């Protein structure tokens, strides 16, 4: 059983999606119960995997028992276990929140939600780059449907942009894969890394081109500077539980960058170009997103820009490339994902009680439960700004400590400036929502218990991340060290075969004698 555990994060949501989509006649209550059960099982499975990975063991699963590098392998290391667990925890909060009524605004919410989880988990666990593309597509397909759940002008308009951009991105993804396959003759990431390392001349130039194309695609998913303009509108118009889950979609792009960089392109000819591009775009993303946070006139786009700040920070940290920086960014990642998710949910709660004004930053009627909502908002705001005692402050300290030399001149001021802008914007939003209100009747209903549980589940992560900061940062440090040693993965997966025999057996069949006779 234990060796099949690795497939559970993909199989469970798939089964869940099938059951939920096929039983569309069952009552809403049944759907909710089933969705909650499947997500809870997923949390359980992901925690088991996390425990397995924490020991430092690399686990491989050859699908259909086709051995690598010919078949598709699933791969579990500390990083992927962490991402799967993070997805499951975030999804649990979103599902609980959605059960309060967001799920019945359209059809099949829970089934499509499970499909999206399957795509995310598959992308985190796969060790094959074409399989990564397939799981990316599953995630995207489900996200298109979820984004337009409930319909409405705003969502359809934003959805059209999102779909077209991502389709163009998928085309680029395939071109990059084609170039890489043509140059290396393999699709297994570990195998590809081994062949790229021993490459020179024309082939190396091709690999560099393919690598940079791949980084462009992942930057589009992660929403890095020239490619982020789709994000604020899309995230702002999505239904709250979906927007909260989308907080991990950008991290999927980040994960893919981390993975292909550490496993395939590290020390290759492409590396300086990749790191340079990530560093400057990451910094520029932080700056522009900080301006966006100040300029936003509605809480939802404001939170979307906060997601962008965190993405800029994470990618700039990736570009530093040191183990310490990776440790810091992996510690920052769960915190920022869960807090941003919680903020999207809180924005929905606030909007519900403000009548027509919604989440716009204007004077409106008084909130019905202003102490409860104010408390939640304050907790989340302190977390997202990165003030002590929340995990955000620890993560930023770790990151600033990991920055060395000339990089400090750029990263420190920008990081602190972004923190200040967030502080200003969140205080302004908070004062408008909770203090600048008309006196008079409050009519809107109360926050339901399920919604509160969902938000509390996500917010509870902040104290947990602080209290267990020691073990968690040790874990992320170990994960960063594991990432820095792709040799271990290659040796364990592919055995001891030298790189030279494999390059010769690459199935590239350029037959010059037969070419030219069309």
């Amino acid at each position: 059983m234990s060796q099949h555990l690795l497939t559970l994060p993909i199989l469970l949501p798939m089964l869940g999606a099938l059951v939920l989509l096929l039983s569309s006649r069952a009552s809403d209550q049944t759907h909710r119960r089933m969705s909650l059960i499947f997500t809870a099982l997923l949390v359980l499975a992901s925690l088991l995997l996390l425990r397995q990975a924490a020991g430092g063991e690399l686990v491989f699963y050859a699908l259909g028992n086709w051995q690598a590098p010919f078949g598709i392998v699933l791969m579990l290391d500390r990083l992927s276990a962490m991402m799967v667990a993070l997805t499951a925890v975030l999804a649990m909060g979103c599902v609980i929140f959605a059960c309060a009524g967001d799920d019945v605004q359209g059809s099949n919410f829970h089934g499509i939600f499970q499909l999206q989880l399957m795509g995310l988990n598959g992308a985190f666990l796969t060790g094959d780059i074409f399989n990564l593309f397939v799981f990316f597509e599953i995630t995207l397909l489900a996200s298109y449907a979820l984004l337009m759940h409930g319909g409405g002008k705003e969502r359809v308009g934003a959805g059209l942009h999102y779909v077209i951009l991502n389709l163009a991105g998928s085309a680029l993804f395939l071109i990059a894969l084609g170039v890489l396959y043509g140059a290396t003759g393999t699709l297994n990431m570990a195998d590809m890394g081994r062949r790229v390392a021993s490459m020179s001349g024309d082939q190396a130039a091709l690999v560099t081109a393919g690598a940079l194309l791949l980084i462009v695609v992942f930057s589009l998913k992660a929403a890095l500077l020239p490619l982020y303009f789709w994000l604020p509108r899309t995230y702002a118009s999505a239904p709250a539980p979906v927007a909260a889950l989308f907080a991990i979609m950008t991290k999927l792009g980040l994960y893919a960058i981390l993975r292909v960089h550490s496993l395939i392109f590290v020390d290759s000819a492409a590396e300086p170009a990749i790191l340079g591009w990530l560093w400057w775009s990451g910094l520029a993303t932080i700056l522009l997103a900080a301006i966006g946070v100040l300029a936003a006139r509605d809480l939802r786009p404001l939170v979307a820009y906060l997601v962008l700040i965190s993405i800029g920070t994470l990618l700039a940290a990736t570009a530093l490339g040191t183990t310490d920086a990776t440790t810091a960014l992996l510690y920052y990642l769960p915190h920022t994902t869960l807090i941003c998710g919680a903020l999207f949910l809180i924005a929905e709660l606030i909007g519900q009680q403000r009548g027509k004004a919604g989440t716009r930053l204007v004077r409106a009627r008084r909130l019905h439960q202003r102490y409860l909502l104010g408390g939640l908002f304050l907790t989340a705001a302190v977390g997202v700004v990165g003030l002590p005692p929340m995990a955000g402050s620890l993560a930023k300290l770790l990151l600033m400590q990991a920055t060395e030399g000339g990089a400090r001149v750029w990263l420190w001021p920008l990081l602190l400036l972004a923190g200040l802008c967030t502080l200003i914007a969140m205080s302004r939003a908070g004062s408008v929502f909770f203090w600048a209100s008309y006196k008079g009747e409050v009519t809107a209903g109360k926050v339901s218990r399920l919604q509160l549980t969902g938000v509390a589940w996500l917010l509870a992560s902040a104290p947990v991340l602080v209290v267990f900061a020691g073990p968690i940062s040790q874990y992320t440090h170990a994960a960063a060290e594991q990432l820095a040693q792709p040799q271990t993965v290659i040796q364990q997966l592919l055995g001891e075969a030298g790189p030279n025999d494999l390059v010769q057996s690459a199935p590239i069949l350029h037959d010059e004698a037969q070419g030219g006779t069309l």
Partner: protein
Amino acid sequence: MEALFSLVVGVLTASGIYLLLRGRTFPVIVGLALLGYAVNLFLFSTGGLNTHAAAVVGESLTPTDPLPQALVLTAIVIGFAMTAFVVILAIRARGDLGSDHVDGQQGEEGDAPR
């Protein structure tokens, strides 16, 4: 053969990107479809271009690489489904936004009356 093949892929990609940058949803979708064809052809060629090479082991002394064909098949299926989806989405957007323009602008020829 290589020159002709790359020319075809190049022209298809260029046309696809040109149409993708247009302002109305219909040319954009046609652009996406062309880009999809270009990508499929490109993927097909990544194993190397061969003539008289069977894909089945044992049928020919110089078998062609079977993997790109499997990749193309996957890409075609995904591309086909996505084109169908985006067509429906564009029709829905025209109905909801009252305009065929990707930014939802109104007042041009062919737009639905307000």
